């Protein structure tokens, strides 16, 4: 519902990128059997843990259309073939090891995949897990009658073949490097739960999920909480907790209060608001941590609006953007200023972009130089076009509304009129955003999803307003960027790709289709005795490794 929950398998580490493409030796297979060793030991589970979300998880079939908060439940109940850890490394789960070119799991051309599965995994209902379940899952995702949340990538899969109960193979229509990171967020669901179900959108499984994961479905009180209990037959290490409760607390202030009083052990999605950070740090018995995310906050232009067509105007607006004050005063110094859409932790990040300087005089000089002269009402204009525009964001995001008003005041002082027009989320992120019906927007976006390719955002043919299929909602057109994007996407060598992506970042920094403000950092809180909590920018939710969590 907010615009934050963009996808973020954000930052593949360099090694990860190389591993996937088969350029160097993989090192991840080592971790493969760590789980089975632990499985032999008897499980000791104790205590319960309450995680609070400010949105309610309601979709429990991980392949149905859902939002990020639902994935909190998915990670607890299900497993993918292999997951992705906080360093961007793939770690085997239901697969015996992560398929790579070296271990023969992926053919040299990247087209043929061969995955070996564990033979010691049981579904929560006691039935054995087999390759048929994997086949069913991958087919379900592209079933035309199924309300699938993600087809991209899976629709390239051909010749899906079960070789044996523990082996499965398929072929990809074309080489597609991001498919590995897509699989890392593809949870395997049991085929037998859908036997004889005509409408898979409404299967009873969807409201009483059966998985292979560390926790089992126990109870849901709609509008309030979901209770999960330990799966003591889990094949991996853990679980260590007897019960996990996902509590729905729709108000962030209340969520924080309950964290303070101990009713909530871990602040989940949307976490602690920045204005509570100073107080939260001092709370006894709590650990409060600032965690960087992959989301880049920007003031985004609709480049087809006559006011924004001229580069000098965009440059002037950037010069008039008091980033430092916004970060220090309104966001309590938590986020890091950004110049690029690429997260700073990424292998592909360009650290050499020119640094933004807040300078109202420079902004004025730029506008004067370009011929934008103040009119009788004090607002600048040129050739009958007034330097006046609306700015929108999700209504109810208080800090952003403060940022808007602060920007508004600065712009007014140099003869630019910005009007605030905020919208409910369902309206904001519908056609208004997708079909570029805005003048300007303040938005936090995750540009990089698993792969540094950002064609969806910057390719000139990717604007839905012009009939494109991507999300180039600023309607940015730059033939050179187009060329580089093609180059980057067709190359298989990370070092080669990096050259293209560094250049793209440079061009976009110069063209300013959006004014980069900062890279998000959020405040996560947990009770002191909660162990195992590890922030992971490559997943969308903190409970991605809930199986490893324990108390005491």
């Amino acid at each position: 519902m907010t615009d934050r929950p963009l996808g973020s398998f954000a930052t593949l580490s360099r090694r990860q990128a190389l591993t996937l493409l088969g350029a160097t030796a993989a090192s991840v297979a080592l971790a493969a059997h760590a789980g089975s060793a632990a499985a032999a030991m008897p499980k000791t589970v104790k205590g319960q843990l309450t995680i609070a979300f400010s949105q309610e998880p309601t979709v429990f079939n991980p392949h149905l259309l859902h939002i990020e908060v639902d994935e909190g439940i998915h990670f607890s109940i299900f497993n993918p073939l292999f997951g992705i850890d906080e360093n961007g490394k793939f770690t085997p789960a239901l697969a015996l090891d992560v398929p790579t070119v070296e271990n023969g799991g992926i053919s040299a051309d990247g087209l043929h995949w061969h995955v070996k599965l564990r033979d010691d995994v049981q579904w929560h209902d006691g039935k054995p897990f087999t390759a048929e379940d994997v086949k069913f899952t991958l087919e379900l995702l592209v079933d035309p009658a199924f309300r699938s949340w993600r087809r991209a990538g899976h629709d390239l899969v051909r010749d899906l073949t079960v070789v044996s109960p523990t082996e499965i193979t398929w072929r990809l229509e074309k080489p597609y490097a991001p498919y590995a990171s897509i699989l890392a967020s593809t949870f395997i669901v049991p085929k037998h739960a859908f036997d004889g179900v005509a409408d898979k959108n409404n299967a009873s499984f969807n409201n009483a999920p059966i998985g292979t994961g560390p926790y089992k479905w126990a109870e849901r009180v709609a509008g309030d909480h979901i209770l999960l209990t330990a799966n003591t037959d889990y094949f991996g290490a853990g679980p260590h907790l007897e019960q996990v409760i996902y509590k729905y607390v729709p108000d962030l202030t209340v969520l924080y209060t309950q964290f303070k009083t101990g009713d909530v052990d871990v602040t989940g999605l949307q976490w602690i608001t920045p204005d509570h950070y100073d107080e939260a740090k001092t709370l006894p018995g709590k650990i409060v941590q600032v965690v960087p995310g992959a989301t880049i906050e920007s003031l985004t232009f609709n480049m087809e609006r006559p006011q924004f067509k001229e580069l000098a105007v965009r440059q002037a607006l950037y010069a008039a953007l008091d980033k430092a004050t916004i970060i220090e005063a309104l966001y309590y110094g938590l986020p890091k200023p950004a110049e690029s859409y690429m997260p700073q932790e990424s292998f592909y990040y360009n650290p050499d972009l020119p640094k933004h300087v807040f300078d109202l005089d420079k902004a004025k000089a730029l506008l004067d130089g370009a011929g934008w002269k103040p009119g009788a009402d004090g607002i600048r204009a040129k050739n009958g076009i007034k330097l006046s525009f609306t700015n929108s964001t999700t209504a109810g995001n208080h800090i952003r509304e403060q940022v808007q008003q602060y920007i508004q005041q600065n712009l007014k002082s140099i003869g630019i009129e910005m009007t605030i027009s905020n919208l409910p989320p369902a309206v904001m992120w519908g056609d208004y955003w997708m079909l570029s019906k805005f003048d300007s927007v303040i938005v936090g976006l995750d540009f990089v999803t698993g792969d540094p390719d950002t064609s969806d955002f910057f390719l000139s043919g990717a604007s839905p307003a012009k009939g494109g299929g991507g999300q180039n909602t600023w309607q940015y057109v730059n033939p050179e960027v187009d060329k580089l994007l093609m180059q980057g996407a067709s190359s298989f060598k990370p070092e080669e790709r990096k050259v293209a992506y560094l250049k793209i970042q440079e061009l976009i920094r110069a063209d300013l289709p959006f004014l980069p403000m900062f890279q998000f950092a959020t405040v996560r809180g947990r009770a002191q005795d909660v162990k195992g909590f590890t922030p992971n920018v490559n997943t969308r939710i903190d409970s991605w490794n809930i199986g490893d969590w324990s108390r005491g």
Partner: protein
Amino acid sequence: MSAVSLTPESSAPDRWWRHRAVQRFLRHRLALIGLAMILVLGAACIFGPMLLPFDDLFIDLRARFAPPLTGAHWFGTDPLGRDLAARLFMAGRISLLVGFMAMLTSTVIGSVVGVIAGYRGGLVGMVLMRFVDAILSFPSLFLLLALAAFIKPSPAMITIIIAVTSWTEIARIVEAEVRSLRDRDFVLAARMLGLSRRSIMVHELLPNVAGPIIVAATLTVARAILLEAYVSFLGYGIQPPVPSWGNMLNGAQQYLANAPWLAIVPGVAITMAVTAFNFIGDGLRDALDVRSELD
């Protein structure tokens, strides 16, 4: 009332302040208090901003969250360091204006629909009143939020949205009154004299239902102020930086622990204004001898 009046209405002197209703209103203590409160609030909103040394829109991030009585900030400052008193008075202009305009709009629509439905009766009346009933059976929250999704919020639009959700009650009251008057002698007489339908409705019926309309209208102002506050509180109403009492409360819940004055100051203003209009409405009800549904 006519049973106890010894002097016929026509023989009363033509001074409006000697009119019995006015006299009765003036004897109603609460109504007078209400009137005084509105006058004070109104004067503060009109003249306050001129007297204060601060602009309601001036952002000063160094002065964020100043508690009340910090220097010249009587009511403190908001999260952007703007003077709360200046904002409160400017907001009052907007909120009172929205309330007043919404009242006017809904009273006009409600009276027209009510008089037509009540006088014409039959199919026209049926259709109109079923429509009124239909609107009345919506939770007003739904109507407000659904309409707010359609329209870019501005004070004028918020006024219209509120009017759309509140004209129905007036229509219902007027319809019931007119229906009961329809077959009275004076209407029949007018009809026999050959007066047009419109002229009967406007000249004969409307003045006779003026009492209930005035009372309902007063209470509608109170209601409209509340509705504006709620919609803006949710963030779908009047947009920043223009202050309204409602949007000043937007976000106040978040700062309740550290800056409670952000919630208290505008809330007290809203309560005062609404109370005042309710007091006045109560006084008018007694003065104009309007039986309320409940009493």
